[in-house]
């Protein structure tokens, strides 16, 4: 697999929301990602109980889709991307998934024909492999997943994406212990290896059906760290450690694009600004509207270089203003209208500066994801092409360095100590992958369920 060795952009200033170096067109219209404007992406989630029968789940998806489309027509939104993040029953039953996608695509066609509403459909297959319970390469789950990629690609999906699980067992152990070694091993090495094994298969399926291989996210690790770090009142994981884990995430999520994924990336991949700086693919981000799914400390800032703007996932239910899907379609639609209005007025850079100012110094996570710092972390990654390990380590160290160097990025004493310790720990790690892997394979044999053969060791 070739690795990225240079940046897609000459400097961070060249990066702006709505425009990507390598645009992608999907669905009816088509929806053009990265070609100057931003588009909204709604991610609806069915209610508990609706998965009981195929008829019920189809009805649920029909309603959710109808709500999204009709609300766009009612409010004048020019385009909508709908992502179905599969529930268990969809991925494990490829024919359910096929029926759900067929139905949604027909609804989208109807709105395209009647109103000219542009739309596209993303199939995010659930990675059902739990690394401490199955062999990642040989299990029932992987068969289901590949089949469902195929069945949804054949039946209306415009984009295939996933949130892969590799390295999760080691990462979970490590994040609970502020163990940077395990974090880098889990994210930077194991997850990268898993992606390099799985992604060519996904790309092949997408190519077979002439659709788009989208992207992957470090959700299972990077977001776990970020959510555990939580807000200013939480004391589960230091925010600085979560930010370092995120640096690592970028080195790891890059593998999808090295395997042929083209974007749109996955919404919850907060590492995407770094991915965009390196690859130039259009990125999907979730920000203020993803409050429905989780709290975060950089909800405005992540709009700085976004191409597709999402809400993460909202469970279907009634609110005063309509269904939750209508409500969040509306919020996303107006967010996007604001961004596109800025673009049309020639104020994109001003709006970017505003959104960055909102959150760059709110928390270290926003700090490192601000376009300037993302760009620097990207440079550290592409300068270290020798191994997955080394580029992950470089990303972590660059992240730490940036935080340390900016006097406006305030930290509590506790966070400062955690950062210093993490940095020292990482600096002490071996200089080459083989040594590092040896060390980790022996140390993490104590992690329940960790099976090196899952990764081809």
């Amino acid at each position, binding site marked *: 697999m070739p690795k990225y060795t240079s940046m897609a952009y000459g400097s961070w200033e060249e990066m702006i929301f709505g425009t990507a170096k390598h645009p992608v067109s999907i669905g009816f219209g088509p929806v053009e990602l990265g070609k*100057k*404007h931003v588009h909204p992406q709604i991610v609806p989630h069915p209610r508990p109980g609706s998965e009981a*029968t195929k*008829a*019920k789940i189809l*009805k649920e998806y029909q*309603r959710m889709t109808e709500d999204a489309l009709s609300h766009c*027509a*009612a*409010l*004048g*939104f*020019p385009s909508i991307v709908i992502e179905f993040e599969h529930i268990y029953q969809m991925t494990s039953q490829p024919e359910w998934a096929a029926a759900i996608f067929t139905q949604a695509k027909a609804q989208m066609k109807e709105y395209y024909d*009647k*109103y*000219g*509403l542009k739309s596209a459909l993303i199939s995010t297959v659930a990675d059902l492999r739990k690394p401490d319970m199955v062999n990642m390469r040989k299990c029932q789950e992987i068969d289901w997943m590949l089949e469902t990629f195929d069945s949804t690609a054949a039946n209306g999906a415009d984009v295939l994406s996933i949130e892969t699980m590799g390295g999760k067992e080691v990462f979970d152990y490590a994040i609970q212990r502020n163990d940077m070694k395990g974090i880098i091993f889990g994210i930077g090495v194991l997850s990268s290896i898993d992606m390099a094994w799985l992604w060519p298969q996904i790309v092949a399926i997408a190519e077979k059906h002439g659709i788009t291989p989208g992207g992957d996210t470090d959700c299972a690790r990077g977001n776990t760290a970020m959510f555990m770090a939580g807000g200013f009142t939480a004391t589960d994981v230091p925010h600085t450690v979560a930010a370092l884990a995120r640096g690592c995430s970028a080195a790891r999520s890059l593998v999808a694009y090295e395997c042929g994924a083209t974007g749109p990336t996955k919404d919850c991949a907060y590492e995407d600004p770094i991915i965009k700086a390196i690859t130039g693919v259009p990125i999907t981000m979730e920000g203020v509207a993803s409050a429905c799914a989780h709290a975060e400390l950089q909800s405005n800032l992540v709009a700085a270089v976004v191409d597709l703007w999402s809400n993460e996932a909202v469970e279907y239910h*009634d609110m*005063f203003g309509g269904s939750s899907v209508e409500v969040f379609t509306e919020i996303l639609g107006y967010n996007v*209208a604001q961004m*596109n*209005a800025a*673009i*049309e*007025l*020639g*104020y994109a850079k001003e709006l970017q500066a505003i959104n960055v100012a909102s959150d760059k110094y709110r928390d270290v996570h926003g700090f490192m994801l601000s376009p300037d710092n993302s760009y620097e972390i990207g440079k550290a990654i592409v300068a270290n092409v020798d191994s997955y390990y080394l580029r992950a380590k470089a990303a972590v160290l660059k992240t730490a360095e940036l935080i340390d160097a900016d006097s406006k990025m305030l930290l509590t004493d506790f966070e400062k100590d955690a950062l210093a310790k993490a940095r020292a720990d990482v600096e002490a790690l071996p200089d080459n992958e083989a040594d590092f892997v040896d060390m980790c394979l022996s140390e993490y044999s104590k992690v329940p369920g960790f099976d090196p053969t899952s990764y081809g060791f």
Partner: protein
Amino acid sequence: MQKTVNDLTNFDPIFIRYDIKIAPKKRDAADVSTDPALQAIAKGVVEGDEDMVAEASKAAIASKGPQTVIDTLILGMAEVSKLWDDGVYYLPQVILSSDALMVGLNMAEEALGSAVVKRGTVVMHCAHGDIHDIGKNVAAALIRANGYKVIDLGSDVPEETVVQAAKDNKADLVTGTALMTTTMSAFHRVAELLTQEGINIPVVASGGAVSEEWVTSWDRGVYATFAKQGPEMAGDAAAGMSWEDMRAKWNLVV
């Protein structure tokens, strides 16, 4: 120089005026009668012109008899409904037409010496504790204009009052409107009281707070989305359709 919206000409990336894209072609109302005297009545209804209807009805009652006038009024209103369905008419035009129709109808009934036989009887109300009555009023106007007897109990109506009215008037249908999540549960109680009284009719529930899912979770409940569904629903109930069949027809049920 500060740039403003005035510097823009192309808004397509920001919003699309779907209303303009889908605007139906203007269309004149179709004639409902070749007889100019009757067509004048229908025209009055179509244009929502009470004076025109009064004048034309007066003449036609004398020359053609009240029943013909009534039939014409109803044909005029049917044309109005068609125009609304096609997006040519908006609600206010329909309401004005229904006002006009009532003027003619009252005149014709007076001439007949008795009220026209109604197509059925509908008891309507807003939920106990709820004063949001516009949707109910609109639906009532439409149902009435389509030849049904409407007993409008108003808003904030106790459940017992609703059931009593249904009993007293041998209603074919009860409808309830609620805009607040705190009031809508009254409809379920209305339905249960009806059962207790042995009155086997459907309860159509509607209004902003009310969801199809909830309404179809208890016996007798049939959910309505739009006021314009009212007349046909009244027709179904008057024709003796069971609440189960009405629900199957009008609601998405799995």
